[in-house]
């Protein structure tokens, strides 16, 4: 499969600083987003640290032992294990930094990361940033928010509609960097040609209905443009928070004959074949 992606982050209509952060590491097919929190500019520090640590760990530039809770599960791919460890390491780094710097106390960040290797998808997440999969027109949220309202919905105390209007939407049950150890959710899925992945912060999902998100993802064939449109929609609807969107398209590889017909000689002559 050919993987094409695009992302955009925006401060929104009501905030003055953008505490969101994202990175697309194309050669690895690694996608990371984070939404920081904590007064002054510390949310930005936390989200940047989260993204940086995850990217570096996955690239093998950063090695370190995370907390004891970072024990990977048997049966996971190396990739999932590494991503899981990276999330724990990010937690540790942010926590240590906030302990060492008085003014950074209380800072934290969410994390949602997806790593694609061939047709295998590994995802990890902490907090209320989300990963969605759009498959044959069906939008499916792969992550479960670690927020108080989401937990109340799972326990049948609130309905999904009530949760959408709750005043406690911003209360998280888990975040990176606020405790010495954190529980990280990790999972693996198989990807199919034409699948579309969406990583986003709550600045999108609180402003734009899922149906509208699905429609936009389906109608826009360029992932960068899709990301741009989604950010635009969030802003049109009020843009109450920073908004970050990463869109990833799994494009079917053309079969040998068709591919030869279309690209033929140039492809063989020019490219060095790196992914």
């Amino acid at each position, binding site marked *: 499969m050919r993987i094409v992606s695009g992302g955009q982050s925006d401060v929104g*209509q009501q905030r003055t600083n953008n505490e969101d952060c994202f990175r697309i590491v194309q050669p690895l097919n690694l996608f990371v987003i984070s939404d920081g929190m904590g007064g002054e500019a510390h949310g930005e520090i936390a989200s940047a640290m989260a993204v940086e640590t995850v990217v570096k760990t996955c690239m093998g530039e950063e090695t370190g032992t995370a907390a004891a809770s970072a024990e990977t599960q048997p049966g996971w791919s190396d990739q999932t294990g590494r991503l899981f460890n990276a999330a724990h390491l990010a937690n540790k780094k942010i926590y240590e930094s906030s302990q060492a710097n008085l003014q950074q106390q209380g800072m934290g960040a969410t994390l949602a990361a997806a790593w694609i290797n061939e*047709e295998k998808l590994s995802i990890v997440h902490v907090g209320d940033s989300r990963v969605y999969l759009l498959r044959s027109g*069906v939008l499916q949220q792969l992550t479960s928010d670690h927020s108080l309202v989401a937990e109340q919905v799972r326990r049948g105390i609130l309905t999904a509609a009530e949760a959408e209007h709750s005043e406690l939407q911003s*209360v*998280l049950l888990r975040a990176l960097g606020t405790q010495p150890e954190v529980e990280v959710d990790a999972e693996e899925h198989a990807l*199919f*040609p034409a699948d579309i992945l969406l990583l986003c912060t709550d600045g999108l999902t609180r402003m734009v209905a899922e149906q509208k998100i699905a429609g936009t993802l389906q109608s826009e064939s360029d992932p960068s443009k899709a990301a741009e449109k989604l950010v635009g929609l969030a802003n049109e*609807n009020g843009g109450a928070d920073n908004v970050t969107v990463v869109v990833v398209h799994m494009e079917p590889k053309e079969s040998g004959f068709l591919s030869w017909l279309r690209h033929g000689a140039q492809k063989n002559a020019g490219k060095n074949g790196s992914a």
Partner: protein
Amino acid sequence: MPKLTLMFEEKTVKEVSLGARPVGIGRSPDNDLTVDNLAVSNYHARVYVDSGKMVVEDLKSLNGTFVNEMRVERATLKHGDSIHIGKHHIKVDATGEAPVSYGSGRQTATPKINETMVLDTKMRREMLQQAAALGERTQLAAGRLRVPTLVVLGGKTDRKEYTLTSKLTVIGKSHLATVRLSGWFKPKMAAQINKHDDGYYLGAGDKVPSVNGSPIQGPVQLKDGDQVEVCGVRLNFIFRE
């Protein structure tokens, strides 16, 4: 100055101009636009200007505020928009001169936890305990462990029975599919079954599957005993105790 016109069906009830002061909308008579209907909250919504933009804000009303049919908490308004509140609607006319900003708009809004915060372990435990006390009944109802299972009733598949363990289940010819179909011209991904918080939903793939004989119109939640048919394969969705 922009104008707001309260309408009931085709009848104009009242018209107000939007200046520096916000326009209150609700059932209580001290609103600028009083809407006399039980479905409308006393202080239902308000419209004001923030940084040059006209904004409608729902004041946690019971039945909601809608802009062009979409429920909103807060939304930017433009000329020609229609705000629906109960059975009334308010036409937005922004052709007039741009008003002065109502700067303090956000500060005076109903208090709300806007900054993201994390519950520490103790707070988390307390809040979840409260939640648990309320949710106990629903938890008990789902008591026994029930395993979602697909039993093959007919057609060519690689197994006779499948336990749905993953969040995403694909029925198709692909080597990645959970329920693998064999035979010529079978699609790689014929249909999908996705797990949500409240159950399992059947959705289309390259084909539109049927549930109990009728083709689905969009994702549908599967019930114990449902018969799913796609590409000549018949599956029985059941919960094994």
